[in-house]
């Protein structure tokens, strides 16, 4: 009887794994099947045509997403790395650092739509006037929303990577008379930089797929636009709008866009895995 239970549980565990992996395979296969056929050069070079017309692409959405992510990285990466440096180098063991670490983890769990609502209230709402170019939908608002989402993730991963740098490296630098700030920046951070870049890529790929905060901050745009002061197209947002539309051609574009998005994210995640598995601290060993 005990042996039978053992076999039964093994069977259940294996079947659970199969049931879990199956949707993943199904999603990938279906995406490739539906998206690959509609993926052509037009997709990357043309803007969407009027509904009902055949053809067009999502070039403006790809460019728009790139603009948004660049702005988000400019905001999120320096502040995030700075926070991580504080947690690992200056605040180790202090109560403030523990509080910040906990808050960063909790902030990671806040839904992205709430971030979008807060950004709307802060930047997009017509009543806002603390800066002259605010008060309307814009790429700036979307970039800020995405950048704020990147900060807690990058802070935590930077901290983890910096904690892995052996003390001997820091002591050697300080023993040579290098000022503390220089030692942290040029030696510790540089040693951990593969890992830190990996963490930034992780945050980047997570934010690249976010749609909810963009719906009412950048609003979307059917035309070419790279201005930070105007609504801009974004790939996930465009996919959302097209998937919900009643036009077959737009559905086709949505599938192609989903395929592009998922390929980018799979590449990023695989790269992250590859770098971390090969050993982050090549410089220190």
């Amino acid at each position, binding site marked *: 009887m005990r042996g039978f239970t053992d076999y039964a549980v093994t069977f259940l565990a294996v079947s659970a794994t199969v049931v879990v992996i199956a949707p993943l395979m199904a999603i990938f296969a279906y995406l490739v099947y539906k998206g690959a056929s509609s993926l052509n050069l037009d997709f990357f070079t043309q803007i969407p045509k009027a509904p009902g017309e055949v053809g067009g692409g999502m070039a403006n959405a790809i460019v728009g997403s790139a603009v948004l992510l660049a702005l988000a990285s400019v905001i999120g990466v320096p502040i995030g*790395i700075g926070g991580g440096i504080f947690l690992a180098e200056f605040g180790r063991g202090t109560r403030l650092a523990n509080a910040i670490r906990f808050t960063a983890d909790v902030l990671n769990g806040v839904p992205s739509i709430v971030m*979008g*609502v807060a950004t709307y209230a802060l930047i997009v709402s017509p009543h806002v006037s603390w800066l002259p170019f605010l008060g309307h939908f814009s790429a700036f608002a979307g970039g800020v929303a995405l950048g704020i989402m990147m900060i807690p993730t990058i*802070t*935590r991963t930077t901290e983890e990577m910096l904690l892995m740098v052996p003390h001997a490296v820091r002591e050697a630098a300080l023993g040579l*008379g290098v000022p503390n700030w220089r030692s942290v920046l040029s030696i510790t951070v540089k040693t951990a930089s593969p890992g830190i870049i990996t963490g930034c890529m992780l945050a980047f790929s997570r934010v690249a797929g976010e749609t909810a905060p963009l719906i009412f901050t950048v609003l979307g745009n059917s035309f070419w636009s790279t201005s930070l002061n105007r609504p801009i197209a974004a790939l996930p947002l465009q996919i959302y709008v097209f998937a919900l539309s009643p036009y077959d051609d737009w559905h086709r574009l949505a599938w192609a866009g*989903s395929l592009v998005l998922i390929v980018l994210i*799979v590449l990023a995640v695989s790269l992250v895995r590859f770098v971390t598995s090969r050993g982050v601290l090549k410089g220190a060993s």
Partner: protein
Amino acid sequence: MGRPTHDSEVRKFLLSRGNSAGADRGFHGLMVLCALSIFAIVVLIATELILRSNLAWKAFGFRFFFQADTDSFSHLPLFWDPVNGHFSALPFIYGTLVSSLLALLMAVPLAVGVAIFLTEMCPRALRGFLAFLTELLAAIPSIIYGVWALAVLVPMMREYANPLLSKYLGWSGFFADDNPTGLGFTSAGVILAIMILPIISSLTREVMSAVPHSQREAVLALGATRWEMIRMGVLRNARIGIVGAIILGLGRELGETMAVTMVIGNTPEIHRSLLANGSSMAAVIANEYAEAVTDLHRSALTEIGLALFIVTIVVNAAARLLVWAVTRGTPARVN
């Protein structure tokens, strides 16, 4: 012995360096500012949400969350009527709870099963690959889950699952067959389950790996089978952490927007049937915020966003504390 007449290069170099205390203090201050930005972000979000939801709070008060105005003619509840200004969060709270609980019911056994398989039973060569696949599931953006669900899952539910459910379980009153669209709480529950599976499973794996091997060896030495060893040696010790992992999955799915918006049917009503259309807190914000005309409408939506904010913070904090308690140390980084 006096000072040597000729300073060596090293001494010249060291003496020429000024005091770096100023730069050090400046750098320290800059890093502290960056770290404090995390607090600033939370405070900023909370302030904006509270300020913007003030209008709805003054209009409805606490009633917003558990009561609705009734229509004077039909005596039916007026849950969400932007035109006439009747707002109540009830249908969205109901929808969020129902879809989340359904998802948990479906996801937790599967996730724990996967974790058990990967930690205790899987051959080492396969382990990395399968773990990578589950991690990939977690990295897929919500919108892609939504598009896939709309195109594949909803027709599947409409053609196969829903008729079967309403035929065989319709007697319970929870599976009416009056919704021919395939959208609804059940579809939302299924896609949510698929989305939180990797989180719960990877955290459970981490928590199970944190159980010291001595526990496993002790139970095996007493003559247990592998399942008994898992049950008594590992799961019993990792119980708290697994509960924390489940709560973390709950926290993640409470705020899930895109996939839910596309499959839940977006109907601000409360129905007992699990196959009925509904809406969720995040879904209504995503759908109506950009087009809200009146300030009261936007304020009501912001109040729902504030409730979502508070609830997810509380749930996530509780979950992190539980996982901390078991893994003891810096908490796991979850995508």
